[in-house]
């Protein structure tokens, strides 16, 4: 049995940090290599914990989609269809494609609520905090100098 993706990324991150970065020193190449090492470590963390982190918040958003009283018939029907489709495979709403579909539907609900339903809008804002917080990654242990731009 081969290593899982997260394990392989962790090994690559360590290898990059210990084998490549020291050879290049404090140069543009060295710091770029260190950024790659940090990215690999973050991708390992994302692979290992991302879906589980996102699942609870995604289920909350799905529940809001399913229960929201939307007075626009066309939008309400569309959101209901999306909620039903996403509910059929709830595990997928924390994975990339399903999560994007959930977020797209949630964004439409939030936009409508901001215009027409203040109480629902407040629930959307709380849900948005949960979604965004669940998506956050911890800072990398040995990160790059920063995303200068």
């Amino acid at each position, binding site marked *: 049995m081969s290593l899982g993706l997260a394990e392989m990324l962790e090994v690559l991150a360590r290898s990059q940090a210990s084998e490549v970065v020291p050879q290049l020193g404090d140069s543009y190449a060295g710091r770029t290599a260190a950024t790659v090492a940090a990215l690999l470590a973050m991708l390992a963390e994302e692979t290992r914990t991302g879906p589980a982190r996102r699942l609870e918040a995604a289920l909350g958003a799905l529940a809001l989609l399913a229960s929201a009283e939307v007075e626009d018939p066309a939008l309400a029907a569309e959101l209901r269809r999306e909620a039903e489709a996403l509910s059929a495979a709830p595990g997928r709403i924390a994975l990339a494609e399903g999560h994007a579909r959930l977020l797209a539907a949630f964004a439409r609900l939030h936009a409508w609520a901001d215009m027409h339903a203040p109480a629902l809008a407040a629930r959307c804002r*709380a849900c948005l905090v949960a979604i965004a917080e669940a998506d956050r990654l911890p800072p990398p242990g040995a990160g790059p100098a920063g995303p200068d731009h």
Partner: protein
Amino acid sequence: MPDRSAELAGPLAAWLSEAWRAPVEIRAMARLFGGAARETYAVEAEIEGRSRPLVLRRDPPASLVATSRAAEFHALARAHAAGLPVPRPLLLDIAGTRLGAPALVMQAVAGGRAAGLFESDPYGPKRAEVGRALFGALGRLHALVPDARDREMLPVQDAAGRLAWWQAAIAAHARGPEPVAEAALRWLARHLPRPSGPPTIVHGDLRSGNILAADGRLLAILDWEMAHIGDPMEDLAWAADPLWAHGDGQLIGAMLPLAEAIAAWEAASARAFDHGAWAWWRIFAGLQGLAIWITGAAEAASGRSDDPVLLFAGLYPYRFHAAAVARLLAEAGA
């Protein structure tokens, strides 16, 4: 983006020689890390037997933000002439005929270093001195009255203009649903603030990573590529953004409490901090971050750049700002 020092050294020497009417040799040249919006090189040039340390900034094929070297050069020159701690700009090739892309050359600032994003307490026990110097310098920038040349060279953007600018960037680069950015855009459009006073020259990217400091002294404010004429509250909010706080929840940029930063800025600018608009500008700062990271990630995905910093931007700062903006929106309410 590779280090193109070897291919650029010859054309750079030719450019400098022509501009300075004397033979110039490039003794050393190396790309500097960071500055994903521009290629930045440390250059040691020699002219008539004297060493001259320089910094070259050149447009990359893809970037986190689209900016103009002409505007950057003008803002640097204006700030330098006003006595602010900035590198002295020397040469500009806006057509890109010298080095294959628009470029500018400036005098290098000796000493100091910029803080890394994850560096804890980067200014040490003299953090307050750096903070007072920084917010004092920012106040002096904001005390300048934009003249006709400033208005010709720099984008003029009030709060609505800035919002439209980043809204367009997000629309052009978003690769999927952006519920936080969309919610922020709606909130910001509904609550547009009145100007905090007359428009000023705004640095546009003032944060801990864009200053050089050493031993409690502010040596230079760097990276003027996002300078524009607008509301100075923008600079204050961006500088106070938690992404640049180095993990310190109390101090702005790991330097000063907000009240002290405001006091230093007010004393130097002779302007009043706009408490009523602060929430707006903080959310705007987070939205600006989102727009920048969305743009960077899209550029990486496009294949125009292989710079891993662009990937990093889409992974860590993007998610940081999404969460920060969502929290601010929840606090702000309808």
